[in-house]
């Protein structure tokens, strides 16, 4: 038992050779559930090494994660664009859209029943059908979609009505300086300054990824604000209201930046989307 006690006094001894399996030891008298003859302090502390190893790897990952992630996206993206099974989407941090909704049910409106209301400080308030929107001048863009949580979908095809064209169609009344956009999910809202809304890379999108905007992607009509983080690109667009000042939207009330320029807001330094 001397060897036994020695080990107990120096539990930190790593890799101390164990000359015999503890189960060979004769059972000793002891109370039920007391320390077993195979002393738990015997043996090599592999458990501690594994835990520390995992933590060490994790620390390296945290420090090197930024470069590792871009490497991973370069390697995975060609695979994921060709993958028809969707299996590569199960890998973490891959380059694909992730679905976020703040409501319990997926908002669903048929293409025939869809209406976009343009209200507030405009010369000619309007209620537009999908056909009305497609009758306006169409603009197509190929731009990345960057989420504030880090994922980015490269080179997405978008098309629809550029927001400045829609604003010209209804006429902006004097004094208007901002837009409040509402989703027909009844909960989500967003905001843009009038200057931001006048950019030609801000679309009222009726198609993306080479087809009509699907319900999951915010169809039949959604917003796409190319230079800003994804939460500005409101899905299920139901109403655009012209106002005299900015009213922060859903996530902005939760602390996100109102001016959500990619790479220049929310403390992030992603490559801007030009």
């Amino acid at each position: 038992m001397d060897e036994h006690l020695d080990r107990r006094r120096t539990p930190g001894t790593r890799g101390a050779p164990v000359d015999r399996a503890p189960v060979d030891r004769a059972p000793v008298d002891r109370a039920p559930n007391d320390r077993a003859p195979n002393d738990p302090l015997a043996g090599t502390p592999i458990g501690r090494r594994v835990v520390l190893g995992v933590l060490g790897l994790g620390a390296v990952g945290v420090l090197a994660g930024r470069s590792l992630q871009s490497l991973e996206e370069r390697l995975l993206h060609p695979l994921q664009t060709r993958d028809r099974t969707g299996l590569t989407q199960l890998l973490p941090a891959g380059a694909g859209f992730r679905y976020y909704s703040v409501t319990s049910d997926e908002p669903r409106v048929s293409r025939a029943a869809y209406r976009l209301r343009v209200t507030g400080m405009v010369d000619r308030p309007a209620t537009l059908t999908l056909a009305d929107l497609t009758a306006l001048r169409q603009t197509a863009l190929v731009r990345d979609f960057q989420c504030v949580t880090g994922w980015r979908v490269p080179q997405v095809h978008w098309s629809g009505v550029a927001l400045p064209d829609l604003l010209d169609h209804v006429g902006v009344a004097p004094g208007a300086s901002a837009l409040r956009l509402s989703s027909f999910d009844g909960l989500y809202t967003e905001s843009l300054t009038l200057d931001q809304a006048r950019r030609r890379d801000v679309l009222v999108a009726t198609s993306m990824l080479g087809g009509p905007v699907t319900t999951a992607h915010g169809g039949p009509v959604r917003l796409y604000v190319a230079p800003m983080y994804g939460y500005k690109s409101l899905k299920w667009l139901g109403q655009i209201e012209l106002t005299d000042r900015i009213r922060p939207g859903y996530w902005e009330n939760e602390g996100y930046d109102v001016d959500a320029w990619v790479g220049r807001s929310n403390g992030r330094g992603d490559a801007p989307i030009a």
Partner: protein
Amino acid sequence: MHPLRELRRFTTAERWVHRSTAALMGACLATAAVLYVGPLAVLVGRRSLVAQVHLVAGIALPLPLLLGLLSRAVRHDAHRLGRFLPVDSVWLRARDRRTADLPVGKFNAGQKLNAALSLGAILLMLGTGLTMRYANQWPLTVRTGSTFVHDWVAFFLTVLVLGHVRLALRDPQARAGLRTGAVPVGWALREHRGWAEEELGSGGGAVALDPNRAGRDTEVDQQL
């Protein structure tokens, strides 16, 4: 051999630690799946509620073990799980572990590795998760790195948990051990001979089989 006897394997505290850790881990994985797997996210929605549940379950995840360490039996088994004996290396290398008839202790090497990997992963997930939650306190590199690590560790942890559940599903007696605290002697001699002999030799851990206990085997399985 000992057809009518059972061995006491886990105390109430140990079963409670395992059950609550399993429930919290299940909550973390389920909410994570809803947050990150597109079709599930479409099905469930309610993103901020799901994220809140994920956060609370994640922060609570280490608590059952920490509280459990107040129990001597939990500390004792934690020591056993952390230490590799010579038989564990033999077990890991053995081609057919069932027929090798090794004097495996209370936990085999696979269980020990699972415990250590799970603990390491839980601590990493906690650290990176809190970094992401309180993102504004940290430089961008650390935040992006934390997201990266959190994503990948989640992936491997899911594989680890699924493997653990799969092995548990194949062994009803092991599951009953975590449900009732006792295992049949025959099972113990087959799967953990070193531990069984140690318990039988001392005569301390064995209990007579009470016919009323048999009903417990039909309880709904909760520990997965």
